[in-house]
């Protein structure tokens, strides 16, 4: 008898979810096998990369990360446009860092105005992330959801402590939510159930398992994502059959290993190359664990990851 390569028996499928509106809307999910196991199933939509834009000039960024955007850091609209025109971004992720109550503490109206301007200036899907302060995010997202009614923004992080408030705003004004749980598969499933009970429809939800970069516990994120996919694909767990979004740029670039200059520590080598590789390799690890959307920063890291996706899916 000829040898037969054993195959995983899949019984489930990841939901296909459309992010954004209009011609540039993107669809993610739909996998019927483990990530890139194209010999066992399908991956009808390749993972997408959203490029980060900040709503205020970043502080304490590594030089390498700042350099490509040095001319646009004070203007989120210009920044977003640069990502799309110069670097071919298919999605934008606007980080509302300035709303942080422990930082600039900008108000909800001002934040919403920025989101509105960016959303009107671009036609690719727009992810909007708050600061994970429940009270502040609730205040900000209520306003953001309202002034961008019907644009199908992707709003997050929506956590157990604020899912009712932000979830309700998202339902009311037709936006997608990012259900974020603290690297815990059981709590991740629970939040999806709670959002479903609240009335968030299955095609308006993506999951954020909370990730970290290489050297900072990425293996935990990997393991949780892997188990999410096992439950979704082999145990028909429909509460986990959602696309996964990974907010990875921030995690890699805040690490000492990405920031420290070569002059400060010569044995660390070229700082630019180091930061880019750290981001690209962390993103690659998460792709292999099942990421559907990666939030990334450096154009060269993005280029490397795009090449990796192309090679992994080449027929």
């Amino acid at each position, binding site marked *: 008898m000829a040898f037969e390569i054993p195959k995983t028996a899949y019984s489930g499928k990841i939901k296909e979810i459309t992010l954004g509106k209009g011609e540039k809307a993107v669809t993610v999910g739909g996998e019927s096998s483990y990530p890139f196991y194209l010999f066992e199933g399908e991956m009808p939509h390749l993972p997408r990369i959203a490029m980060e834009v900040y709503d205020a000039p970043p502080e304490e960024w590594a030089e390498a990360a700042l350099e490509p955007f040095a001319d646009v850091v004070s203007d989120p609209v210009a920044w977003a446009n640069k990502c799309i025109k110069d670097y071919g971004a298919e999605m934008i992720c606007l980080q509302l860092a300035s709303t942080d109550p422990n930082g600039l503490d900008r108000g909800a109206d001002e934040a919403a105005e920025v989101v509105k301007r960016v959303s009107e200036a671009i036609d690719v899907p727009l992810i909007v992330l708050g600061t994970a302060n429940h009270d502040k995010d609730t205040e900000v997202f209520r306003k953001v959801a309202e002034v961008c009614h019907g644009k199908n923004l992707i709003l997050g992080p929506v956590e157990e402590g604020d899912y009712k408030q932000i979830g309700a705003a998202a339902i009311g004004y037709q936006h997608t939510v990012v259900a974020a749980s603290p690297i815990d598969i*059981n709590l991740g499933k*629970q939040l999806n*159930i*709670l959002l479903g009970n609240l009335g968030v429809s299955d095609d308006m939800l993506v999951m954020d398992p909370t990730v970290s970069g290489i050297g900072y516990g990425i293996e935990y994120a990997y393991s949780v994502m892997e188990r999410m996919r096992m439950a979704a694909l082999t*145990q028909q*767990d429909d509460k*986990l059959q959602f696309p996964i979004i990974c907010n990875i740029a921030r995690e890699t670039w805040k690490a000492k290993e990405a920031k420290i200059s070569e002059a400060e520590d010569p044995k660390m080598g070229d700082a630019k190359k180091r930061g880019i590789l750290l981001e690209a390799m962390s993103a690659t690890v998460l792709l292999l664990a099942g990421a559907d959307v990666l939030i990334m920063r450096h154009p060269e890291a993005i280029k490397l990851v795009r090449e990796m996706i192309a090679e992994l899916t080449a027929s």
Partner: protein
Amino acid sequence: MILIGENINIMSQTIGAALKERNPGPIQQLVRDEIEAGIDYLDLNIGPARKGGDELMDWVVNAVQAVTDKPLSLDTTNPVAMEAGLKVAKNKPLINSISLQPDRLEPGLQLAKRYNANLIGLLWGAEGMPRDANERAMHVVDFVYKANETGIPNEHIWIDPIVSPVSVEINQVKACIELMSMLADIAPGCKSTVGMSNISNGTPHNLRPWLNRTYMIMLMKYGLYSAIVDAFDTDLIKIAKGERPEIVSLVHRMMEGEKPDMAALNEEEARYAKTARVLMGESLYSHSWLEI
């Protein structure tokens, strides 16, 4: 099944205070209530009891024995306190517990031998929690060998395969069951026990009994001899005493691969079936597991 009541515990607000104040009233009342509920052994958990543990254990054993002659399960990690309890316990007590950690194993076994006591062999090794069923099995062999060498017969050994919370790591939940299925072959004559409520640690308080009961039924399939349980979960006690054969049969059939028609089950049966699916690793745990 032998039931060991877990309720006399220093972590409880009323019992903690009573122990501290050497006030026997609340403890003796709880003892009566546990016995009334159908408990066979009384666990006396005085915690690590670093300071004055011997005097405390002596006191609480005497206070409890003033109202009952049921056997006691002496629950402390302090060997001096353990010995103080063994000295005054009248009805063959149970040492809860002796682990395989090098500094605990030998002195623990010596105590058990000296006082001719029953003992819980906790499968906690030098490297902590065993990773799977095989490591548990290895620990069983080690433990029983060392105990026999000390002169302790298998009949005195109650193996605890370690129940860990469902919300932490399902593979550990499965490994504990798997070890139970092997135990009779690896350690003939040994008994078994588990801390039943551990399975539901970290889950919503009002739902914990469903996990405790269902997991107990699953372990019963492989001959679980005893369990340390919440004395006041009346349904759990009924199950342990063989009064709910239809529920036990449902869970056991599921373990053999039967897929019950959920729509045909009544509400109670459906809850057991859903919980069994979670504990068998067929459905991932979430706090809302009974609702989906």
